[in-house]
């Protein structure tokens, strides 16, 4: 068992544990904080996979901006936990069965049919250098220029949409 495998297994354990923590927490604040930890763990996975830029983007955008927005809304609404209400008794077990079915199907297809080949070679010193980020930038602005521009339009539309949704409606006379 190599060092990389041990590192992977520890990180995978942390990722699954924090995801379960997010699922189980009664308090929405704790859920959000567990999810932040999960995102940071996934960012470390990106570093292991030789993607330093995407790892940093993950931390700044996901673990930073998006989760701060979530925490802000949770605290703004004061909706940490919902009051007890009658819940459908069969919902939990049914969801469990469906989830187990999903994971078993995915694992079965992965083992029997898809069988992705290859091993992840840990990035050497050369991978986490600015050269790869330069290549990434060239690919982004050369091959994927149109999607990049469309993304900027999408962000603008989302911003305008959020403002329109939140704005108080004025009566039209």
């Amino acid at each position, binding site marked *: 068992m*190599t060092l*990389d495998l041990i590192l*992977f297994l520890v990180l*995978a354990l942390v*990722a*699954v544990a924090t995801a*379960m923590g*997010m*699922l189980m927490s009664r308090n929405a604040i704790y*859920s*959000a904080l567990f*999810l932040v930890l999960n995102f940071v763990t*996934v960012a470390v*996975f990106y570093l292991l*996979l030789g*993607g330093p830029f*995407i790892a940093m*983007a*993950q931390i700044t*955008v*996901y673990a930073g*901006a*998006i989760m701060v*927005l*979530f925490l802000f*809304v949770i605290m*703004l*609404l004061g*909706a940490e*936990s*919902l009051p007890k209400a009658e819940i459908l008794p069969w*919902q939990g077990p*049914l*969801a*469990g069965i*469906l*989830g187990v079915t999903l*994971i078993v199907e*995915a*694992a079965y297809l992965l083992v029997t049919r898809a069988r*992705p*080949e*290859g*091993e*992840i*070679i*840990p990035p050497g010193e050369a991978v986490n250098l600015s050269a790869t980020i330069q*290549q*990434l930038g060239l*690919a*982004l602005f050369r091959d*994927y220029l149109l999607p990049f521009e469309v*993304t900027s339009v*999408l*962000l603008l539309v*989302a*911003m305008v*949409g*959020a403002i329109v*949704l939140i704005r108080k409606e004025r009566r039209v006379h």
Partner: protein
Amino acid sequence: MVPISYYIILSAILFTIGALGVLIRRNALIIFMSVELMLNAANLAMVAFGRIHESFSGQIFVFFVIAVAAAEVAVGLALIVEIFKSKRSIDVDQMNSMKG
């Protein structure tokens, strides 16, 4: 050396936990966070495949997914705040009428 199938299985597990969150929880914010977790699981698989094929496309797709997730969160949280204003609750079981 970590086989890529380990990464894919981890991705599948995280995706399933996210799907379970959407199915089980009643708090709209936590359902939303579970959706983010599912997006993240898919991103992990994409970066792993990109690494195997020595290609940057996986990472660039993840970059776009992160941007789309940011847009989605902005609009989704605005909707949740609006729903809270009209219903005083973000329990999805309460959202059973079209009229605000």
